[in-house]
Every structure is written in C-alpha cells, then in structure tokens.
C-alpha cells in the first residue's frame, strides 16, 4: 500500500513538473485553492478556532487574496509553518504566498530570493512594566533588570537603546516567550522586552492585564508583511495590490458593509470606481475579474476592519493602531494610488 502511494506520488510528481512551469496565478486558478503559509498559531494573527476555522489578522490577508483571485474567501488551504520551515515551504512551491508575521529585512528579500509585497503590520520592540513600578517612559528604566530572549535581535536592540540613552540595565536571559512571561510575573525582572504585538498578546494572557503597561517607546523596526517567491512578478502584483486594496479601501471609506452597495454602479469618486471595477479595467490588468477588490474587501473587511476584529483595542490583545494607522491619521499606511 505504502509502495503504491509512493509510485502514485512519483507519477503525480512527473505530471506536476510539467505544470509547474506556468505562473503561480494560473496554478492557483487551476487548483481552485490558494495555498497560504501561516504560523502554527500566534494569538490574534493566525490560529484555528474551536471549529478548526482559521482566524486572525494574517489569515485575513490570505482570505482577501483568495477572494480576489478565486472569488471565494474560503478557497484557501492554510499551511502552517514554523519559523524554521517557512522559507523552504515558500521556496519549494509548497505554498503560493507566506503571510506569517515575517520581518522584511534586506537579506531575506535579496539573499533568500523572496519578494516582500508590502507591510501589513509595523511592529517594533517595546517594554512592558508593572504599573506599580510607576514608570511611564523607557528612558526612566535606569538600573532596571530586563528579561530578554537570548540570541535574538531584540538583545542587540536593547543594548543599543540603553547605550544611546546613557543608562544602565541588568539583563536576565530567558530562552522562550513563555519563560519570559513566567520570570516577569514572578518578579525576576522589572521589565520584559520583545516585539510590541507579542508583549500585548502576552499581557492579554495575564490574570490581571490591567496591572501592567506597555511603554510608548519602540526601539527597533520590525515591518511584517506577506511575501512571495522571486521571479513571478504577475503573482507578486496580485498579492501586493490586494493588500493595497485593503489599505486603500479603509482610506476611501469602503467597508464590508457598504462595498456591495458602492460597487453596484459608478459613484462620484473616480478612485473608488476604479478600485471597485465600475470604471476602468484594473482587474483585467492584473489578470483578475473586474470585481476583484470588491471580493477582497468582502472577505473580511478593509484593513481597519481586519485590525479591529483581530488585534484591535476591543479584542483581548488590545493593540492601538499607532504606526498602523492611515497616513491621513498620522500612521504609516500609505497605499499607492489605484490609477
């Protein structure tokens, strides 16, 4: 039996080798499903719920792309990846795109031969302290003991930050986030530092989250975004502009509630019309249907809706928009024009 599976696999392999030459977009359309790499579980960003349905902020991007390409937000095969397997999964073609809180860095973009298509979450290293410490800024942490994951870039960022501000600190090395959480709660350190979204998720799991505050200082840049393989620019464009469509939709006031109405007929705003396909032929240029952006927004809402539903201030994670606000609101989200 096992042998027949093996032979079968080899046969399929031979057939697939011929098909793989076509573009990813055609592959996805032919397959009728998008293979999207996500984490094996990160609070608020990607995790299956009690019914086994994937939920989360990164998951929302996958669903939007599936909706744009295939017209069905559920036509996604979520492939869970770890920090170690994510890049090989993408490079080997097991997944079509990776939406897994991956920091956009030079070497990943250039050396690993991937293409980051945009940024869906601006993260950065932050500090969490107990409220009782009475600290309101990281610059007041002179002489503090700091729980820090060893061997990470956060360790280096921390040293830089304290040196730059000419204050001292005592590191308490921890191995994992769970260990850091325990040490911090046990009072082994005054403050715990890691990515701000991770801090928020960690704090959300505390018995009394209100007793701890996340300080406003962000000491490093961690731009997280979806990525695709180098060399397939058509597919890269599809993912890039789907993400941009979600961001632009928020800016233009298109939500999952009013998108059907707005896409019925051309309205007064030319950019909305172009985005929703009632004017021009943007969809056709991408190789998609005219209502691609409408489908993407329908899948889970625009960028702001996705944010609020999964990691926003009304969820247990309670992240403020901060850098992830629209440029019109003082954030960094800035979609190139749909023209």
């Amino acid at each position: 039996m096992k042998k027949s599976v093996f032979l079968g696999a080899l046969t399929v392999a031979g057939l697939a080798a011929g098909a793989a030459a076509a573009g990813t977009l055609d592959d996805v359309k032919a397959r009728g499903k998008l293979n999207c790499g996500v984490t094996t579980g990160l609070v608020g960003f990607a995790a299956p719920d009690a019914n086994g349905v994937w939920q989360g902020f990164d998951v929302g991007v996958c669903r939007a792309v599936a909706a744009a390409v295939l017209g069905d937000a559920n036509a996604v095969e979520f492939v869970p990846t770890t920090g170690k397997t994510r890049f090989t999964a993408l490079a080997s073609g097991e997944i079509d795109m990776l939406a897994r809180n991956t920091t956009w860095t030079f070497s990943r973009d250039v050396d690993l031969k991937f293409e980051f298509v945009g940024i869906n979450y601006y993260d950065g290293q932050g500090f969490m302290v107990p409220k009782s410490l009475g600290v309101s800024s990281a610059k007041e942490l002179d002489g503090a003991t700091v729980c820090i994951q060893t061997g990470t870039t956060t360790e280096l960022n921390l040293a830089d930050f304290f040196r730059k501000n000419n204050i001292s600190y005592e590191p308490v090395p921890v191995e994992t986030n769970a260990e850091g959480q325990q040490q911090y709660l046990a009072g082994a350190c005054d403050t715990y530092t890691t990515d701000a979204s991770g801090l928020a998720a960690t704090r959300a799991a505390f018995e009394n989250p209100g007793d701890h505050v996340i300080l406003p200082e962000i000491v490093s840049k961690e731009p997280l975004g979806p990525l695709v393989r180098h060399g397939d620019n058509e597919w890269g464009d599809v993912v890039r502009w789907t993400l941009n469509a979600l961001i632009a939709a928020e800016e233009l006031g298109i939500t999952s509630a009013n998108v059907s109405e707005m896409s019925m007929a051309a309205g007064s705003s030319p950019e909305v019309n172009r985005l929703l396909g009632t004017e021009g032929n943007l969809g056709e240029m991408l190789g998609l249907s005219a209502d691609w952006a409408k489908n993407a927004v329908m899948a889970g809402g625009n960028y702001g809706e996705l944010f609020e539903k999964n990691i926003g201030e009304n969820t247990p994670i309670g992240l403020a928009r901060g850098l992830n606000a629209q440029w019109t609101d003082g954030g960094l989200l800035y979609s190139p024009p749909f023209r």
Partner: protein
Amino acid sequence: MSDTHAHSVAFVRETAIPPAPPPATEAGVIGWMRQNLFATWANALLTVVAIYFVYLLLTGTLPWILGGLWNTDSLAECREILQGKNAACFSVLTERWNQLLFGFKYPDEFYWRPGIAFILLFLAAAPVLFFDLPRKLLLFTAIYPFLAFWLIWGGTVWNPVFAALGFIAGYVVFDLYGKQNFAAGFFGGIVAAFVVWFLAGYIVPAIAPEQPVLEAVQSRDMGGFMLNMILGVVCVSLSLPLGIALALGRQSSMPLIKWICVVFIEFIRGVPLITLLFVANVVLAYFLPPGTTFDLILRVIIMITMFASAYIAEVIRGGLAALPKGQYEAADSLGLDYAQAMRLIVLPQALKISIPGIVNVSVGLFKDTTLVSIITMFDLVGMIRGPILASTEWNGVYWELFSFAAVLFFITCYGISQYSQWLERRLTTDHR
C-alpha cells in the same frame, strides 16, 4: 532413659505451647510500619520528612484539581468565576477535546472512524501480544493494517485491497520458489508485489466509484493524539522486523550485506531524530518537483522507522552476542540451515534477552513522536503549542493542557511497560 532425669527435673512439659499471637509491635499494620518505615532513627526521620513532602504536594495540587472548572468558555471566564482562587481551568480540555484527540481538521462527522480503528487495534494486537490466544486470530491481525488505513484515511476501498493483494502475491511467489532458493523466492516475491501495485495504479482509478463509501481525508488533516498513535504503532511494528534483519545482517559473513547494515546503523544512530524529520519535511521538498506533496505522514513514518530500527538492531545484537557460542554450534551440528537455526534456536533466545531493551526503545520512540510538532504536524503537543495556546480564549493555560498530555502518554507507556514485564515472566524458563 526416660527415668534418667525424672528425679532431677521437677517438671517436663509434654505438649507444645499453643502458638501465641505475635506481639502487637511486630505484626499487622504496626509491625509493618516498624519494619519498613521506622526501623531506625534515620529511617524514621526520612519517613517523617517524606510524609511532610507528600502532604505539601497534595495540599498544593488536590484543591487545584478538585476545584477545577470544566464548563466555561474561556480562560477569562474561568478567572472571573474563580476570583483569584487557585484552581484549574479544565474547560480547555472539554472545549477542545476533539481537537486534542483528532486534530483540528479531521471532519467531526467521521470521528467514529479512527475510534473504531483504535478499538480494533486491540483485537488485532491481542494474538500477537498474547500467544496463548488461538492462532487463527492472526488472520485479523494481517487484515488490520489495511482496514485501519481505509477507516482513517477513507477513499476508495480498492486502494487497501490492491495493497493487500500485492503482499499476497509476494507471499505466494515466495512460498513457491523460496523453498528451493531463498534469494529467488525473496526477490521474486518483491517483484511480484511491485507488479501488482504497478497494475493497481492503472486499475484503481478506473474502477474507483465517484463517491467512495468512506469519504477521503487528507493526511495533513490528521492530528492530535490520533497522529501520535498512528506514528507510534506503525513505526514500532515496522521497526521490529527491520531491526531484526539489520542485526542479523550486521553479523552476516557476507561482506556486502554486513557493510550495508553497519553503515546504515551507524549513520542513522549518529544523526539526531529531529534532523531526519527536517530532512523528511524540508529537504525532500527541494528534490521533489514543485507542487508535489509526497505524503508527509508517509515521509515521517519512513524516517522514524529508520531511526527506531537502527536502535532496535543494536539492542538485538546485544541479545545475539549474549548467547553462548555453543547454541550456534548446536544448531549447526543438528544440520539446520541458517534460516532454521536462527528461527528455531538463536532468535527465540536472543529476543527474550532483548525484551527490556526493545521495550525501552519502543517507549522512547512513542514519546519521540511528539517531535513532529516541530515540523508543523499537529500531534497532541503540536495542537497544544500551536492552535490551542494561540487562541484568544485559551492563551495562558499551560498546566492543564500539558498535564493532560502527560497523563495520556503515561497511560500508554505504562501499559507497554507492564505488558513487557508480563511477557518476561511468561517466557522465564530458567530456574532462579
């Protein structure tokens, strides 16, 4: 003679004193405690300290366990109800019960299928494990792997049927030719099996019905403790015969076979299991054409089996080495050929000696199946570390989940260990 002392001794007792009950300090509960717990001052001190620690442990854990909540919807709700009291939030187990056992993607209307496969596993294993049972039951054991595959994976019934036919064809050919020439029968059997499987590759798609009786479930949808059981059972049962073959091969006088076995064993033993799993998951993906998914569970089974069989081979080699040379020579002097000598004289004794070691490897292997969580398979530990702890409802529940995993693994491993002790007692033939 009887008068000799009649005058010098005033009284001679003529009947035995009726046996008196032992003193209270030497019998019953008190006697047992004096002997075992308070024999000396040092022992008494240790006993008191030990009792104190047990007390501490129980007062710490019992209220936590007994006061646990079983039917809330989230950790936050648990904490609200407990109001700072120290008690467990077992609700995560009840809410995610199915996910813990079957993974989060196995369709819930089909849970009965792996359930039946699990129950039948005991039926199938019984005649192998308890050799006093009627031998005819082995027929079911032979059918079981195909039946279980069909139940768990579903799909057309012809797949497992043709797989079984391949094995039958191989056996028939071996039976026909193996008597005269072992090698001819052996390789002929393999060729026959492959011919059947090759033909099945064309026949099955043609005759498979549109709607199979049992709907197919993909390998990547398997998860939970079911995945641990599948990997553990399959890999242990495959690695035992492979390990025996490797151990015998290593002792072979034919240099080619000997060196193949030595290199295989030494190479696999020198590599960590997690490396092999990464090879199975990641590196193979580079060699196969893009878009191919050569079943991940199958890849992992191959790797774990290779790993376990190398270890079992060394354990069995130890058993073989422990046999006196006279046993081998006795077999030769009876005129037995190699296969007969091994089957009738050497292996039964060597395997008996090796039982503790084999069980050790099996238990270790079963627990090692949790390593697959690192290559993104959602076994029991993978389910806990990934989806469950990452859900907004249950983020922060550690003790309850990992204790549950520990209990499941303890039950299984303790069962294996108890069986092996029974087997050792049952096989004892020496006079101790």
